[in-house]
């Protein structure tokens, strides 16, 4: 089953523009992570944000987390053609009877950055 749902499913922008991807989830979480996947490759970890954090930055990436709305967003500023990839959010949920669950991934957003 997939908990995170990314929106939009696909996004096409011009180089230099900002790209925003959103993720919604259903259960209480321990943390939320964003990953990137280039075609035919494995996933690469971008950012991990814990449930008690609201915002994190890493270079051109900014992640926000709103636990009241069960949503997160990933912002890529000043996009480059090399940012073209699929982006996935994934959640570690906390279940009172079994502790933390393994990462559950959404279906991803396919980002195309046109030079």
């Amino acid at each position, binding site marked *: 089953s*997939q908990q*995170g749902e990314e929106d939009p499913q696909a996004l096409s922008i011009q180089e230099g523009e900002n790209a925003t991807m959103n993720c919604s989830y259903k259960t209480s979480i321990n943390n939320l992570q964003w990953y990137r996947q280039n075609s035919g*490759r*494995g*996933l690469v970890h971008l950012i991990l944000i814990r449930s008690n954090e609201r915002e994190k930055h890493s270079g051109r990436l900014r992640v926000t987390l709103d636990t009241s709305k069960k949503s997160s967003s990933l912002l890529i500023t000043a996009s480059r053609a090399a940012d073209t990839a699929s982006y*996935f959010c994934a959640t570690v949920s906390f279940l009172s009877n079994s502790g*933390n669950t*393994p*990462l559950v*991934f959404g279906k991803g957003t396919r980002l195309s950055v046109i030079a």
Partner: protein
Amino acid sequence: GAGVSQTPSNKVTEKGKYVELRCDPISGHTALYWYRQSLGQGPEFLIYFQGTGAADDSGLPNDRFFAVRPEGSVSTLKIQRTERGDSAVYLCASSPTGHVSPLHFGNGTRLTVT
């Protein structure tokens, strides 16, 4: 250092055959995961090892799927009596401690069942 290594990178097999997929995690990582990814979908959890033991195998679709990690490092995912629906990319990931740390993924094994 070396990342997560998966072999083979591609595997084509006939329906009904047995296959083994291998994963070499990052040295020292105690947690190891197997995921399966179909085209256009996100990775789907299969099984998680902490050390040598399977801590959570709730994602294995049926008893044709089995995974081992006998010495707490290399893991093998075994699929018996393969079906066409098993065709997917099988991803392995490792982590120093478990779910609360980022996962390091290999490039996957693309399994095609004809």
